[in-house]
C-alpha cells in the first residue's frame, strides 16, 4: 500500500499529510510533483491544503490544469481513492470531480480553529472505521470554505448519503452545514477540515486518524 501526496506550487500541508501517513498511520507515503503525469503506482492520492498557484483566479482554478490532474482524474474514474483536503477540496470541485463550489466564508474572515464534525455516514472507504453520529474534532483553516451548490445537487447529495461530515456549529455559511462530500462512486472525498492536523496527540486531537485508518483498511481489503 502506498499513499501519494500531490505537491503543487503553494501547497503547504503536503508535509503534514506525509507525516500523518508515514508516522502516525505508519504506511508508506511519497510526494507527487504537479508536473508529473503519472501517480507512480500509488494506491491512494491526497490533494493537500495550501494555496496552490497562490489561489490566483479562484482557489484550485489553476491547479486543475496541471499535468498530474489528468492522472488523478483517470485514477478517480477507475475507482482509486482520492482525498482532497481544504485547497484539495477546492481543486476537486474546480476539476469537476466533486459537485458544487467553495466560496468566500459568510463572515469574510479567514477561520483557523478546531471545529466539531458529525460523521454522517460510515458507508465510505474514508469513514468505515468511525461510528455514524460520532462527533470528531479537527481544525479548519480557510477563507473560502462556504460550500454552495444548486438545490438539485444538494438534494442529490442528501438522498445518496454523500454528505460525510457536517459542522456541528456552521463556521462559514456552508449550505446544509456541509464540511465534506463524496462523489457518486464514493471513492473521492473532499473536506474542508484537516484530518492530517489531527493525527498526533501532540496536536490536541487524533480524530483525523479515522479517515486515514479507514482508507488503509479499504486498501488492505481491496488487495485480499
Amino acid at each position, binding site marked *: 500500500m502506498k499513499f501519494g501526496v500531490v505537491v503543487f506550487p503553494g501547497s503547504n500541508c503536503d508535509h503534514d499529510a506525509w507525516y500523518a501517513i508515514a508516522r502516525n498511520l505508519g504506511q508508506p507515503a511519497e510526494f507527487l510533483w504537479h508536473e508529473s503525469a503519472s501517480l507512480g503506482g500509488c494506491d491512494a492520492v491526497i490533494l493537500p491544503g495550501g494555496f496552490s498557484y497562490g489561489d490566483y*483566479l479562484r482557489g484550485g482554478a489553476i491547479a486543475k490544469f496541471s499535468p498530474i490532474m489528468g492522472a488523478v482524474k483517470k485514477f478517480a474514474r477507475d475507482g482509486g481513492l482520492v482525498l482532497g483536503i481544504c485547497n484539495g477540496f477546492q481543486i476537486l470541485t474546480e476539476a469537476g470531480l466533486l459537485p458544487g463550489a467553495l466560496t468566500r466564508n459568510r463572515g469574510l474572515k479567514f477561520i483557523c480553529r478546531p471545529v466539531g464534525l458529525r460523521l454522517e455516514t460510515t458507508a465510505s472507504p474514508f469513514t468505515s472505521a468511525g461510528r455514524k453520529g460520532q462527533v470528531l474534532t479537527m481544525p479548519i483553516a480557510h477563507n473560502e470554505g462556504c460550500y454552495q451548490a444548486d438545490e438539485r445537487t444538494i438534494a442529490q447529495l442528501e438522498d445518496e448519503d454523500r454528505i460525510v461530515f457536517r459542522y456541528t456549529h456552521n463556521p462559514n455559511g456552508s449550505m446544509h452545514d456541509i464540511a465534506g462530500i463524496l462523489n457518486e462512486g464514493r471513492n473521492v472525498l473532499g473536506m474542508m477540515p484537516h484530518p492530517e492536523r489531527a493525527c498526533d496527540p501532540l496536536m490536541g486531537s487524533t480524530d483525523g486518524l479515522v479517515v486515514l485508518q479507514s482508507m488503509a483498511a479499504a486498501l488492505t481489503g481491496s488487495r485480499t
Partner: protein
Amino acid sequence: MKARVYVSLKPTVLDPQGQTIRSALAGLGHQSITDVRQGKFFDIQFAPGTARAQAEPELQQIARDVLANPVIEDYRVEFLD
C-alpha cells in the same frame, strides 16, 4: 484588438463581499441602495490582425473553462475596439 471578460457571482449565490459593501454604503448614508453584487473583469489583448470571428469563440471558451467557474459564476464577453 482588446476584449473584456466580466465575471460575477450568479444571483442565487451568496455574495458576502457585496453584502458588506452594501451595509458600508448604508452606513455612509446611501439609504436608497438596496443591493450590491461585486465581481471582476479581465482585459485581454489579442495579437494584431486577429480576426474577431476567431477571437470570439476562443474567448467564450476561455471565459467558461478558465476565468469563470460556471457552477457559481456568470460571465460576459465584450470587445473594446
